[in-house]
């Protein structure tokens, strides 16, 4: 019986995957992480995200107009919104507003549209903007809020807004109020007035920055990362940090697993990134525990989990092919470990992602699937006969 009518060629699986749907699900899976961030870091996170959203969408609208594209792309592919949310989550929580706006404009206008818009950009827009800001104003970009449970009631919307948008006076006033409120809740030992005299104790360099300065260097060979972390643990100043970072890490992991379950992102990239990074961190740590942090801490602090699921898996700038995805995740992980352990910057997600993006086209070409029979010389074919 001639069955050509019932036989169909591949693909048989018809999905409803569309760019806009992927992007909207991505934003939805970030909701737990945003809520956790607000709980531990105050409402500055939310203000940052909204600020980035507004400036990214306005820039995207203007550029779509300039490039004579239809404005409904704004809603249909929603990629500008994803860039905005990721950028808003990575920026320091109380960053002055003009820097967030400049970063968003840079991400959309120069990193995305100058290269040809969505799908054509070589670099991850959010991370490129982060590096742009980090190089532009290193002081503001490295002072993060220390996580304290219930920070949302200390760094309230009005206080955060005053610090982000306000002039010098209102900023100082809001900082002081937030500081007093936090100290009030912590029940610290000793004379409370001693703490009040500190100008600013709720923002500052992150844990990873502190660790970076505790590495033994030729000028200070006796420094020890292990000794420093043990000392900090002993004095009781770390548990809050731990709780905050574990909670945010878990929230990102939850969202990331949802993305994996919905097959929005390729599972190979986070798996290869986390295993290679974990393995290399372990090697460094076993080689010299005085100079390098243990892998568990590295996975916990900074943007490791967030980056593994949300940043390096960006479908435009990662490598889509199976073998390529393994190699891409591994490449970013190697760069990540090297920059974090040996470099002059505390966290390395942004830099390693950008370098990995630059290598992605090459990886993509090198892992091209070989056509059947291609690449074999006639003699070889003959031998197999």
């Amino acid at each position: 019986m001639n069955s050509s009518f019932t036989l169909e060629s591949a693909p048989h699986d018809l999905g409803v995957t569309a760019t806009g749907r992927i992007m909207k699900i991505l934003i939805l899976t970030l909701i737990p992480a945003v809520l956790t961030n607000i709980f531990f870091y105050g409402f500055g996170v939310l203000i940052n995200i909204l600020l980035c959203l507004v400036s990214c969408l306005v820039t995207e609208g203007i550029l779509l107009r300039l490039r004579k594209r239809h404005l409904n792309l704004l809603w249909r592919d929603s990629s500008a919104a994803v860039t905005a949310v990721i950028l808003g989550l990575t920026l320091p929580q109380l960053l002055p507003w003009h820097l967030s706006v400049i970063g968003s404009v840079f991400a959309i206008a120069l990193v995305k549209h100058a290269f040809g818009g969505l799908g054509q950009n070589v670099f991850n827009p959010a991370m490129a903007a982060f590096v742009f800001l980090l190089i532009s104003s290193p002081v503001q970009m490295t002072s993060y809020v220390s996580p304290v449970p219930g920070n949302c009631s200390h760094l309230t919307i009005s206080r955060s807004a005053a610090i982000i948008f306000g002039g010098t006076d209102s900023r100082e006033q809001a900082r002081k109020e937030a500081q007093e409120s936090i100290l009030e809740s912590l029940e610290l030992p000793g004379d409370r007035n001693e703490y009040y005299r500190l100008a600013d104790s709720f923002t500052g360099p992150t844990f990873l920055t502190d660790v970076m300065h505790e590495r033994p260097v030729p000028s200070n060979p006796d420094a020890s990362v292990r000794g420093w972390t043990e000392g900090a643990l002993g004095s009781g100043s770390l548990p809050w940090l731990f709780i905050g970072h574990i909670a945010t890490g878990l929230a990102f992991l939850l969202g990331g697993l949802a993305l994996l379950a919905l097959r929005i992102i390729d599972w190979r990239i986070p798996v290869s990134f986390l295993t290679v990074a974990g393995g290399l961190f372990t090697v460094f740590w076993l080689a010299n525990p005085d100079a390098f942090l243990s892998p568990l801490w590295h996975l916990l602090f900074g943007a490791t989990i967030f980056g593994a699921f949300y940043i390096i898996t960006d479908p435009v700038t990662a490598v889509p092919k199976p073998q390529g995805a393994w190699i891409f995740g591994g490449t970013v992980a190697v760069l990540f470990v090297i920059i974090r352990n040996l470099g002059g910057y505390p966290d390395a997600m942004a830099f390693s992602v950008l370098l990995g993006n630059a290598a992605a086209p090459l990886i993509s070409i090198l892992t091209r699937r070989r056509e059947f029979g291609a690449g074999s010389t006639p003699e070889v074919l003959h031998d197999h006969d």
Partner: protein
Amino acid sequence: MTITEILKNGLWSKNPGLVQLLGLCPLLAVSATAVNALGLGIATIMVLSVSNLLISLTRRIIIHEIRIIIYVLIIASIVTCVELLMEAYTPELYQALGLYISLIVTNCIIIARAETLASRNSVFHSFLDGLANGAGFSLVLLFIGMIRELVGQGTVFAGMEQLIGDLGTNLKTQVFRSDDGLLIAILPPGAFISLGLLVAGKNFLDSRYRKKRLDKREAEITSVE
């Protein structure tokens, strides 16, 4: 080639900085402030016009097979003179520009103008071409320098006294506080980004002009019909 053509090519349509993208090394490295840019620009104009003049004068006696070596010899001696002049009259600027003055020898604009124009044109045309190309390059350099200085540290023409003495002390304009500047503009990435934006701006203006001219011609054709 007419005089207007030479001027137009050097300053706009074949601008060495924006169209030919020659001499990118000094263009990107020395444009962190307007003063440095202007200083190097003036030095380049001097070297370029004098080298074009000398090469055009001697073009009939230069042996064709070894012409590049002779060009470099001529250019290097002019650069040495300019360098000594700058060291004598603008010592601070000389310190700030450092190696880049001597590196004018290897600036490909100068060899390019010598090879393509001065070696086969009259003395006057060559000299004028040197001036036009040098001015075109210096304007781009100055423009990038002003943008980078403004964005990076909120000033324009800071330190002009290094170049023109007491006259320059009042030229400095503070637009906003230096602390609010975007440091990246002064660093190398800022140079690449501002040059890219300038090239894009020039292409935009060109395409708009071309479109206008096309529209005008079409209108003429329909009116004739």
